């Protein structure tokens, strides 16, 4: 195995050595797994019962997509790795999710803005992957496309309500945009223009603006994460690590 060296990254850190097709499946699975875990943190803490159920349901959809893609990745790899091996037994450096999805929930506005950026991206992504040559991926993507559209209706309607709501909701929504924007450049690389149009459309109605600051963080797809992912994985994986091979 050759070790991949990424500029600006300390020497000696293990590199991700999955073959490209597997790498793509695991990347998308990781996005959905990590975001599901984040959204799950809202359960019993959301602003009201309907939102609690909505965020929980969206989390379940993301989890389901992650499971299907992990299983499929395991089949393609052919080394007997299961969905649990991917989700529960890899280290932070082996996760290939976008930095956006691992960011903390913050307040409700921050969760919604993160979700809106991600839903806008996933609608484009699934439409694209539904045309891929991988039969299983096509099926998963076609189903996930409908779910992403449903999630997008939810998140974009809340971006509107918060951005164009009270002075306080606007302040919080704009603060969320300012905080999350720096994680968006790695989001929609192959359809950046369409993604930006989708965001601008909703933001212009919501009265929200994109920050002038051009600073952007990236590296998630290569396994270089912000400090938040390690804590998320520690919570998600501790039981399997404490009791290896446990089942119920």
């Amino acid at each position, binding site marked *: 195995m050759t070790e991949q060296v990424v500029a600006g990254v300390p020497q000696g850190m293990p590199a991700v050595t999955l073959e490209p097709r597997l790498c793509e499946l695991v990347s998308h699975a990781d996005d959905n797994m990590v975001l599901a875990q984040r959204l799950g943190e809202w359960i019993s803490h959301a602003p009201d019962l*309907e939102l609690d*159920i*909505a965020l929980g349901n969206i989390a*379940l959809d993301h*989890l*389901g997509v992650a499971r299907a893609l992990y299983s499929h990745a395991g089949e393609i790899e052919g080394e007997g790795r299961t969905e649990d091996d991917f989700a529960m037994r890899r280290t932070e450096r082996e996760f290939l999710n976008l930095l956006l999805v691992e960011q903390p929930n913050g307040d409700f506005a921050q969760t919604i803005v993160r979700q809106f950026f991600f839903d806008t991206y996933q609608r484009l992504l699934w439409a694209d992957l539904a045309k891929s040559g991988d039969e299983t991926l096509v099926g998963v993507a076609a*189903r996930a496309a409908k779910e992403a559209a449903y999630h997008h209706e*939810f998140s974009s309607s809340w971006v509107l309500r918060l951005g164009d709501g009270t002075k306080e909701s606007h302040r919080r929504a704009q603060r969320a945009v300012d905080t999350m924007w720096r994680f968006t450049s790695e989001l929609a690389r192959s359809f950046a223009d369409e993604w930006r149009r989708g965001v601008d459309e909703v933001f212009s109605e919501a009265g929200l603006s994109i920050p002038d600051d051009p600073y952007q963080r990236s590296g998630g797809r290569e396994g270089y994460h912000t400090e938040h992912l390690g804590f998320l994985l520690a919570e998600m994986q501790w039981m399997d690590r404490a009791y290896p091979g446990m089942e119920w």
Partner: protein
Amino acid sequence: MTVLVDLRLVIAGVVDPEIPVLTIEDLGILRTVEIDDGHVVVTITPTYSGCPAMRQIEDDIILALEREGVESYEVRITHNPPWSTDWMSEEGHRKLARFGIAPPTGLSEVLCPRCETDRPRMVARFGSTACKALMVCSSCGEPFDYFKQF
């Protein structure tokens, strides 16, 4: 002892654990049941990505197979073509409505399952399970679940 049963019929009778009036055949989840030299392969298509009942359904299929004395079996999941509520049978629609859940007809055609009045109001787009939204009837005032068209 050889028991002659139509295995497909038995497996088709497995019910959804969350909506027990619907069988997996009504839901359109069951694709094929193949028997090759005593080995039974049941192929199903998952519904919504987030449906937690799928694992239970797999287990229930296995239980049904074992009850029939099948020793060699597997349950396969196929994702393509993706499941859609269009695959739900007419009988499934009727059973849902009788159970108090509006079937997946598309939002403009939803009828209150209690009084059959149209134009109910959406209360919450995300309901008690991944497949349902919560609505309320504008006539009788009863809240009810709507099985989302998908």
